């Protein structure tokens, strides 16, 4: 086993452990913290794939933004997360069955096309640099992504204003 495989195995193990912690933890707050672990593992995976800017975005948006918001929501609604809800054994069994069959299906599809997948060459290392992505995002020419980028800003603004309006205390709550 060479060094690269060992690194990948370590990252993958960390991500899967974080994911399992997220779905199995009784306490929701612990689940959210496990998800932080998993997302950090994903950022390291992106770094090892030379998608540097994506790794940064992963840490800043998910760990720094979304999960802080999640922790706030948990503290506001469920205390320290101790008010957990048990789910019945039958539900867990059905969920495990469905998720397991999904995994088996995808595994089969991937292993069938393993030959074609192995032929793909890695892209050059600079495919996710700040400069390259910035130029593409702000270029109005064909191949540039200026319009989707501006639409995304409008979407984020609308979502955040909408979130404030939805979560605000209204007359009928009092």
């Amino acid at each position, binding site marked *: 086993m060479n060094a690269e495989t060992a690194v990948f195995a370590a990252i993958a193990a960390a991500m899967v452990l974080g994911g399992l912690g997220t779905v199995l933890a009784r306490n929701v707050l612990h689940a959210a913290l496990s998800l932080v672990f998993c997302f950090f593992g994903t950022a390291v995976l992106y770094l090892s794939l030379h998608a540097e800017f994506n790794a940064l975005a992963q840490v800043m948006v998910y760990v720094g933004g979304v999960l802080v918001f999640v922790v706030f929501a948990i503290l506001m*609604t469920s205390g320290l997360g101790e008010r957990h809800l048990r789910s019945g054994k039958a539900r867990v069994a059905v969920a*495990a069955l469905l998720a397991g069959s999904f*995994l088996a299906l995808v595994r089969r599809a991937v292993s069938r096309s393993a030959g074609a997948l192995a032929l793909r060459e890695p892209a050059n290392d600079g495919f996710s640099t700040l400069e390259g992505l910035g130029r593409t995002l702000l270029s109005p020419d064909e191949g540039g992504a200026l319009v989707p980028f501006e639409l995304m800003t409008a979407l984020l603004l609308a979502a955040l204003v909408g979130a404030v309006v939805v979560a605000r205390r209204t007359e009928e709550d009092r």
Partner: protein
Amino acid sequence: MTLERLLLLAALLFAVGLFGLLSRRHLIGMLLSIELMLNAANVNLIAFARFGASDPEGGALLSLFSIAVAAAEMAVALAILVSMHRRRRTLDADEINELFG
């Protein structure tokens, strides 16, 4: 690190998220599972951008857009949950059943 292994890792993470979504009753726990599944889809996007894409930069961009949409979705979903908790005092998916005929 091959494309095949990356796809298997993403599928495993997605299956874990699917299990959590189906087995949990706590609405925030279900949301966290959805985030896990979105993250698995993002790993797939980056994996295909890295290996054999005709436009790797486009793949990286698509993953950035997907992260932004996920953040917007999470903001609205958590606002709905906070509002729902204020009115109903519960986040149990089984107890929120006004639309159940």
